[in-house]
């Protein structure tokens, strides 16, 4: 336990020493939200053409759940797998495997750090959004929280699967980016909520981040339970965790 604590504290310090982690994982969701709200014209105007469900909302309000999904994607697809690519490439994991502490403890420490980073990033974004953009509060906070939790679990599991396989930093970053941008697209970063065409929205509902974004959107603005999206996320979780566990190479 002492070893795991020291390992987690040391890994966390190194995490914070890397400016790209600090920016992308912690600050990026907030920065994006504020830029959208303050720089893009029309974002603060009420939506008028999307039917009664969205009456009284502004375009920027639709971005609250999307930015939460983006925060999940950023942590699990960029900063998290890259650490393992780098550690494998440099022999850090190999060196650890000659100590009495199993290299799997690095995974535990990294998951803890990235979950903490995600929580910080989301709290920052919501507080900033509330104060500076007066974002609407969720209609069903429990649905939002549950969807966020499940969404984060499946995305971290996906991150673990990438971390399990990548041999070096370059591949980790490549694979991460290859998934990151399409997933942001499905999550609605470029076409929030009702602006996404019907067919695309249906496809998006089967992707991990798209399902998370839709489930949180329903919880934020709707009255129903996003059953299909929750099931999709559950399925991804059940698929990805054992797969990552089976494929993980510790050296």
């Amino acid at each position: 336990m002492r070893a795991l604590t020291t390992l987690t504290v040391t890994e966390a310090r190194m995490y914070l020493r890397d400016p790209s982690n600090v920016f992308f994982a912690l600050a990026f969701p907030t920065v994006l939200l504020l830029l959208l709200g303050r720089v893009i014209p029309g974002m603060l105007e009420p939506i008028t053409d999307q039917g009664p469900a969205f009456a009284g909302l502004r375009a920027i309000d639709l971005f609250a759940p999307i930015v939460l999904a983006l925060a999940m994607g950023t942590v699990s697809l960029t900063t998290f797998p890259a650490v393992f690519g780098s550690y494998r490439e440099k022999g850090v994991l190999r060196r650890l495997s000659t100590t009495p502490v199993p290299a799997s403890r690095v995974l535990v420490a990294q998951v803890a750090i990235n979950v903490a980073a995600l929580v910080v990033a989301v709290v920052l974004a919501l507080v900033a959004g509330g104060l500076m953009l007066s974002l609407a509060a969720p209609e069903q906070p429990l649905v939002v929280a549950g969807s966020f939790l499940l969404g984060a679990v499946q995305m971290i599991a996906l991150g673990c699967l990438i971390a399990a396989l990548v041999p070096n930093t370059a591949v980790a970053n490549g694979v991460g980016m290859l998934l990151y941008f399409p997933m942001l697209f499905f999550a609605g970063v470029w076409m929030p909520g009702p602006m996404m065409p019907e067919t695309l929205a249906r496809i998006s509902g089967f992707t991990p981040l798209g399902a998370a974004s839709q489930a949180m959107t329903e919880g934020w603005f709707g009255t129903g339970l996003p059953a299909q999206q929750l099931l999709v996320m559950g399925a991804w979780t059940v698929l990805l965790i054992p797969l990552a566990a089976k494929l993980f190479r510790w050296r």
Partner: protein
Amino acid sequence: MPETRRPEPTRPHLPSSRPTPEAPDAPVISVRHVAKAYGAKQAVRDVSFEVRRGEIFGVLGPNGAGKTTTVEMISGLRTPDTGTVQVLGLDPQRDAVELHRRVGSQLQESELPPRIKVGEALALYASFYDRPADGRALAEQLGLTASWDTQFRALSGGQKQRLSIALALVGNPEIAVLDELTTGLDPQARRDTWQLIEAVRDSGVTIVLVTHFMDEAERLCDRIALIDDGVVVATDTPAGLAERVAGGPALRLRTSDDVDDAQVARLLRALDTVRSVAIENGELVIDGRRDVVVEVVLALAAQGITPYDVEVGRPSLEDAFVALTRTPTGAQTPAAGALFADVEA
């Protein structure tokens, strides 16, 4: 002389040994007929040796001889295809955790995270063990105190190497396995490191040292297994290895200009202990048996001849290395045991 190169049939892997109390002189490491292939490449063919408690044991050989693979089987990083390895009575694979508590490893080409500081790395690795060494004292001994707050990526090659040695020792191991210990160190740092290794050995730690540096092996090792092409070709003390290939000392000297070297050569050839005399660039090159040096000097003195620039060649580990390892290197290596080329027989 090469020992047997014939691989013996593999022993059955016995489901044996809890860590047993050892007899006082029992080897702490025993490697028996291990072999290991990577795909089609047979890295280790047949390696056997035993390491005694408290000695510095060298694994010496040319590049690609299978040294690293051999010690990685001791550290539990690789599983032998055939043969057995026992370390402190443990099976490196099955008893991996217990083994890693008691054996510290320094790996070749293994780095630390780029942003970890020296002090953090020592504290982190110390936290892995029940009774760790004092990280600050180790840093002091290895000249790392000034770099305590420096991140790994900002360290010089030599500092990285010294940190990696410190991490192998921070768990207070009974055995330390050090792979290419002084690669990348400057001459002063190498000597400091050798002193540290001797101090560590004197404190009771058994050390397995992989190296391709002759001077390092000669200076540090109590015994050496010389490995070539995946096979142990000889196991002996450094002096013992050297004696295997060279008959005795050899001598070079000059005489003053008014002396006829050809005549001196004839005179010396008549001596019992002299095997051959050659004249090279105005220098007499004498090869002979045990007491050749004294006899030559006395014979010259009796003739009133004063030898100048006397150089005595002792057979070295390097000669043994060249003679006993036959890995083709492209370059033509000198004949076994010949310290100086014989022009005339």
